[in-house]
């Protein structure tokens, strides 16, 4: 079946550096993508979303890039802070109300 995957299961960055988390998706019918952050013991928390008619969207310290040609999604976090340490998931919705998650990337921020 269709899958949403991540290139790296773990990512370690120095505090203050920028982080880039990548995600590949395979369902070309997907038109809506979301990044979630999950801290230990908590539910996934919405970070940012993007629709397929856009290539880039910026939030506070975060930017999502969408490359539909190669079916690739990335999350950039500027000036990474200790509080950014978490598991990050990309998700897609090829069908309304059917959010499909990737396997997650553990981001660790080093002091």
């Amino acid at each position, binding site marked *: 079946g269709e899958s949403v995957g991540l290139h790296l299961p773990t990512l370690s960055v120095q505090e203050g550096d920028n982080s880039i988390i990548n995600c590949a998706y395979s369902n070309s019918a997907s038109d809506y993508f979301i990044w979630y952050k999950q801290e230990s013991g908590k539910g996934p928390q919405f970070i940012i979303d993007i629709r397929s008619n856009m290539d880039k969207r910026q939030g506070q310290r975060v930017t999502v890039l969408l490359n539909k040609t190669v079916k690739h999604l990335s999350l950039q976090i500027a000036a990474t802070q200790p509080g950014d340490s978490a598991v990050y998931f990309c998700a897609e919705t090829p069908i*309304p*109300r059917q959010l499909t998650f990737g396997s997650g990337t553990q981001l660790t921020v080093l002091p």
Partner: protein
Amino acid sequence: DTAVSQTPKYLVTQMGNDKSIKCEQNLGHDTMYWYKQDSKKFLKIMFSYNNKELIINETVPNRFSPKSPDKAHLNLHINSLELGDSAVYFCASSQSTGVILFGSGTRLTVV
């Protein structure tokens, strides 16, 4: 003032028992969901439900059933619990095809 709240947070029970997890959202959303997160952090949709339609992931055993007394609640009933049902279960909600917001999860342990 939690937007999506679920209870209990932890549930330990014996094999063969029947249990329920409750979920409530105070956002006025029209769609609610149940997700299962396994030990490897993989999130998989179980059900999505609004007042018109119940969508069931075909891989979910029929021992699992959602029950919605009203638009603000979607409870999860599980019959004849098995060891493999141990996981974290997340309730979520959204307004139509908008951002899906998650509760803090229920950790179910079947012994």
